[in-house]
């Protein structure tokens, strides 16, 4: 079989992303909710902290995290959480949805590589995640009253954009688990909370014991979150300089998609040889 041209590959990716975008535009309420969920999430620890007095909260927070601007710190955490959570939900749930609606097996018969359809889903997910995270951050800044345009905004955005690739590489690993174990909902929920915990959504990972801290540092979202926080709030990069932290993310960017694709491919072949992808 001839290899498809880049043009046709691009068209597959766009068609897959467009199909999902079309579906979500039919649920505008969900899009609005996407923006508010990170704000509500961040509001929980913010309100809890303020219960002891706003000034005390800032002093204690500064001592524990390196910044007194706890509102921005927590909102950045929950906004990045939205991106991570969407990545897992959209990719893993895409597989599950195709399985349940009986179209996954049909996809395997189509003259298209699944990876490009997955890339389309990832593209849609990136767009939706980025939109939700940015609107949540800026809207949250207005509601919770802090200046969102502070620090190095461009650098923060760079950390997010570079972090997208290893993140979606990781979701392929997870897609493999869904293909094998099938129970998507519970696993995605568990995974999104595990990653949120490890990336330090509301706290620095320095509170972890050494082993847990090492595991956390193996997760690209941890570097992504700290990079964004350091760029905006100046809490300090893990390796002292932004370019060193970014270099680690670049390393993940090369490794994670390759590893994800390889594992996904292995599991996919195994499932096809045994029960088949149509069973769920």
């Amino acid at each position: 079989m001839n290899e498809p041209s880049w043009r046709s590959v691009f068209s597959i990716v766009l068609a897959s992303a467009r199909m999902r975008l079309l579906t979500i535009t039919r649920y505008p309420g969900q899009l609005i909710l996407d923006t508010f969920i990170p704000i509500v999430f961040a509001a929980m620890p913010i309100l809890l902290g303020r219960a002891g007095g706003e000034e005390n909260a800032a002093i204690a927070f500064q001592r524990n995290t390196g910044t007194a601007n706890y509102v921005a710190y927590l909102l950045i955490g929950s906004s990045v959480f939205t991106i991570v959570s969407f990545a897992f939900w959209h990719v893993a749930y895409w597989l599950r949805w195709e399985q349940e609606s009986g179209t996954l097996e049909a996809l395997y018969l189509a003259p298209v590589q699944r990876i490009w359809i997955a890339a389309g889903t990832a593209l849609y997910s990136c767009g939706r995640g980025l939109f939700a995270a940015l609107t949540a951050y800026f809207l949250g800044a207005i509601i919770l009253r802090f200046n969102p345009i502070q620090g190095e905004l461009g650098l923060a955005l760079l950390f997010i954009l570079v972090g997208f690739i290893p993140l979606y590489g990781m979701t392929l690993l997870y897609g493999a688990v869904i293909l094998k174990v099938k129970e998507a909902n519970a696993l995605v929920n568990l995974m999104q909370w595990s990653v949120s915990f490890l990336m330090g959504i509301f706290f620095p990972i320095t509170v972890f014991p050494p082993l847990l801290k090492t595991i956390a540092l193996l997760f690209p979202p941890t570097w992504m979150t700290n990079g964004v926080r350091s760029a905006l709030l100046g809490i300090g990069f893990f390796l002292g300089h932004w370019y060193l932290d970014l270099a680690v993310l670049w390393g993940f960017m090369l490794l994670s998609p390759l590893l994800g694709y390889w594992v996904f491919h292995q599991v996919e072949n195994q499932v096809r040889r045994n029960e088949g992808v149509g069973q769920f």
Partner: protein
Amino acid sequence: MFRIHWHTFWAMARKELIILSRYPVEFVASFGQVFLIVAIFTLGGLMFSNFRNPMDSETSGGNFSYSGVVVYGFILFMFLSDTLWSIGYNIRHEQVQGTLEQLYLSPANKFLNLVARVTNILLWTGMASIAAAILMSSMIGQLPIKNPLLGLYLFLMSLSGTFGIGFAFAALTLRIKEAAQTVANFLQFLFLILCANFFPFSALPPFLRFFSRLLPLAYCVDAFRSALMGFPAGFPELAPFEAELVIVTLFGVFMPFVGYRLYCAAERYGRQAGTLSAY
């Protein structure tokens, strides 16, 4: 008649429990998830305290001790959240799977189908709540248990009222179908803020506290944790305890009936319009 209803209820509850047992990964994962949520929010809260040096309380969030506020609020939130999804939104599953209309062709009491889901919640959420309470109190301090009997009464009334909300939400699900997923998410977060499950009501801006005072569930949270914490200074926060007790009791007694009536109305509408199986 009662015996027939009991058998129907038991058969439906058993079906739910069998389904639960057939997804062991989901079972274990949802348990792990509770632990992670608890750990995330607890560690987030600890950032406002001097937890590395607890003896120095000068800047550790004042003298505010939040273990009781957070843990008891979280328990009620878990039940509310599970009720919205298990009783309310799960009616969609029957619709999507095509079994809802079949249920209406059987001579069994349809309402018991809803009530049977309560068994799962009591069993599963109950276990998860106990585990979460133990974990949270080990992380943020000793849990005060001052008036256990009063606390139990308030808890049962709150639970009964929450189930009523679940029935009402099931009615709404029958009407708005897939959009119910968004509404469930929205309600969950709205209640999380307005019922102040994770923080004292005093932390809410005054205009939001006004809306909290309109929700019986907020009084449940306030009365339940105030009673178990032994009514420390400033608690309960929304109204005098006697008033909250009356509100919680009325909510617990009447809300299931209100929810049931709403469900019956939605069901009647669905049958007349022929939309029960449409999704």
